[in-house]
């Protein structure tokens, strides 16, 4: 075997390990709800009680699961081995989370609502309809809330909030359907004001009128609420707030008078109720406990469960469901950790080579006293001095066992040479850019006009001066404001143009990676015969 063939094989085998790790699954086996179960939603139908819940295979991979029982004494059986509803790339609202499920039968369907979390961590109240046997599910558009008095909307803002312009961020909700009318109670967190409960009603889910004032003001809501539900009580409401593991009930009568109960402990101390729903046979809750003492790293760090709690005080909860069987990691996914450490050591050693080369270059200059040797001398003194001082004194100020003198010296050199001069060298380009702008930004063609106009708009539009220019414009001509223009230039024009470049670059990068891996790129293997070319 020639040297070249040996090296190519070595590169191929190393690359193969990492490529296989990418294509083969990290873990095998397991159920769709093997990581976590939470957010139970009981629904009473003619065929029995269904209990829907959100499960996940890994953190942030939500799916809808279901259990059913025909009689109160019968055991809970899974509706299906597979998830009833899975995340879909076409529906961005619930890609990374499903929380606080609530279901109810209406017009021959099961209507299910939940708070979905998008990839960008935005929360949306989502809606899905299912057949009464709980097996067929369809996604519906999110319910839309209308504000009491619509504020002026700028075009392009609406799509960011599928639920309409709500006054705050939704952290919980309750839903009721009676007399052909939908009623939603929304637990909203308003920045600077805290949590409050708002009522919204309507016949259509696309037009739910939000009340002008909150049903329950922030003062009556306990701190650190993790779950919320509400139920009709006569002509008023009973609101349930769960903070960690304490349940507080707030009753609101038809005149709007609030009565708060004393808190009641729901689950053992150390556990946290993550979702809460009330039904005729008790409270359905999901709780989480941090796994103790140390879980194997491939498992969920939390222990989660679905529980049914009788409404009577001092009764202990009944277990309904635990996460399903867990997946097992493959040898490859365990081996990648060792391979990573190996690679880190090999790559780190390589960093010594350029320094040795640089030192050899300057060392020769000093030894031969060639012109400029004094500068090489400065380089050497600084190199060796900083090297020793960093070894002796690097720390962040909290370091124990290091000499104060070395730490101070290290700090001195860093703050007096590296930091100020680094910034100064970086900032010097500003002078050259001014000169370049003056000399070469000339209006000669359409392209140069575009370049110049875009540069000016971006520079001023992102600055306080741009905001000042926009503030003198009337609200209806916001699109003439430089901040708006610069934002559109950056987030639409620049984004799409650079995306084109990026796609090209990446395809090129991938093809180069494949060429190197398969040994098709010979430039890497040149100079093997002892004569570097």
């Amino acid at each position, binding site marked *: 075997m020639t040297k070249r063939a040996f*090296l*190519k094989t*070595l*590169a191929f085998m190393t690359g193969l390990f*990492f490529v296989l*790790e990418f294509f083969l699954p990290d873990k095998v086996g397991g159920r769709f709800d093997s990581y976590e179960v939470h957010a139970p939603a009981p629904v009473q139908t003619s065929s029995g009680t269904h209990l829907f819940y959100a499960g996940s295979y890994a953190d942030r991979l939500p799916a809808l699961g279901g259990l059913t029982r025909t009689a109160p004494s019968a055991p809970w059986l899974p509706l299906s081995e597979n998830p009833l509803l899975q995340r879909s790339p076409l529906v961005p609202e619930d890609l990374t989370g499903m929380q606080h499920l609530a279901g109810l039968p209406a017009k021959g369907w099961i209507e299910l609502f939940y708070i979905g979390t998008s990839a960008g961590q935005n929360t949306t109240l989502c809606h899905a309809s299912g057949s009464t046997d709980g097996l067929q599910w369809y996604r519906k*558009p999110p319910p*839309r809330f209308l504000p009491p008095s619509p504020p002026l*909307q700028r075009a*392009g803002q609406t*799509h960011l909030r*599928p639920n309409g312009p709500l006054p705050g961020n939704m952290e919980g909700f309750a839903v009721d359907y009676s007399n052909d009318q939908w009623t939603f109670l929304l637990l909203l967190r308003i920045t600077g004001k805290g949590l409050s409960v708002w009522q919204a009603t309507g016949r259509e889910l696309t037009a739910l009128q939000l009340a002008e004032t909150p049903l329950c003001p922030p003062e009556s809501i306990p701190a650190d609420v993790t779950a919320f539900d509400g139920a009709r009580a006569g002509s008023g409401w009973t609101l349930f707030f769960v903070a960690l593991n304490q349940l507080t009930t707030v009753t609101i009568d038809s005149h709007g008078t609030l009565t708060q109960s004393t808190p009641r402990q729901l689950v053992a101390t150390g556990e946290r109720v993550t979702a809460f729903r009330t039904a005729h046979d008790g409270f359905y809750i999901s709780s989480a406990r941090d796994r103790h003492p140390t879980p194997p790293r491939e498992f969920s760090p939390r222990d989660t469960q679905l529980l049914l709690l009788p409404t009577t005080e001092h009764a202990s909860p009944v277990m309904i469901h635990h996460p399903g069987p867990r997946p097992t990691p493959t040898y490859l996914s365990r081996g990648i950790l*060792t391979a990573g*450490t190996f*690679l*880190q*050591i*090999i790559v780190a*050693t*390589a*960093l*010594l080579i350029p320094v040795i080369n640089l030192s050899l270059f300057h060392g020769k200059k000093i030894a031969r006293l060639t012109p400029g040797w004094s*500068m090489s001398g*400065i*380089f*050497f003194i*600084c*190199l060796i001095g900083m*090297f020793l001082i960093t070894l002796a004194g690097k720390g962040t100020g909290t370091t124990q066992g290091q000499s104060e003198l070395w730490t*101070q010296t290290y700090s*001195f050199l860093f703050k*007096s*040479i590296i*930091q*100020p*001069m680094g*910034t100064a060298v970086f*900032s010097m380009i*500003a002078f050259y850019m001014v000169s370049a*702008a003056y000399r070469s930004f000339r209006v000669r063609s359409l392209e140069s006009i*575009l370049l110049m*106009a*875009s*540069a000016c*708009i971006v520079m001023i539009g992102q600055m306080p001066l741009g905001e000042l220019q926009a503030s003198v414009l009337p609200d209806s001509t916001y699109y003439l404001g430089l901040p708006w223009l610069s934002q*559109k230039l*950056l987030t*639409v024009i620049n984004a*799409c*143009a650079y995306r*084109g*470049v990026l796609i*090209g670059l*990446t395809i090129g*990068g*991938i093809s180069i*990676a494949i060429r*190197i*891996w398969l040994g098709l790129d010979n430039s890497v293997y040149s100079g093997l015969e002892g004569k*570097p070319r």
Partner: protein
Amino acid sequence: MTLRTKHLLIVMAGVILTAFLAQGEYRIVNHMLSASIPASTILYQRGMIWLGALGTLAVYSFLIRENPFYKAFEYALLGCATGMGIAIVIQDALMAKCLIPIQHGITLMRHDGLTMEALDGLILVIPGLIGLLWFFQFSKRWFWISRIPMVIGLGAGAGLAFKDLFNRIVPQITGTAKPLWPGETFMAGASFWDRAAIGFENFVFVVGTLSVLIYFFFTVRRKHLLVRGPAALGRWYLMLSLGAFFGNTFMSRLSALIERVHFLCSQWLGLSKPW
């Protein structure tokens, strides 16, 4: 102007400047002393600021012309940065990742024999030895051996780059498929004009990406009728994008300059208030 007058002017300017700096320094030190800061701290802090200020001025002196003052500080910066970098590689990578675990493994082996835990440390001898092969770079005869760690790095790098690039680009390609008329799924309950505005924005986006891709597409001749128009459009998009790049670049450099000017005026000369 005769040479003598010129020298006289330079000396006078020097005297005025020194007096100005000395009076500023006297004011600052006096202020610090009155705040009962120990003399050693004052010396440390003022020394740091003076060295920093001289370095900054040395760098800016390059704008007039290249000079030894600039060069000396440039080499000092280069030396310090390299020295710090190499110390950190040795301390945080080679010691922490390789030598200390090996040492720990040997200690464990002496106490409990060859357990799995001891092996975890001892196995790191292998990458340590492979890493040492890099030093064959300095031998002409055995140069090829230094290629062994290099191809391992390249092979692994290719595998990792493949994963990195692939993971990053797929959402970019799928994200370009934007709805040109956002329906109920995308904008529930939105008005006609809102939909039209977003639809137009998406249209501009999709056209931009495609035309820029066509601009960089060299398989078909540039003069081909189907390529000429979109490629010209792609060029306009690129010009707008490059203008934004220029604007942003200038702002970045400017931030650094503003901070430097503030450092000189506030911390060094004590003329303006600190932020």
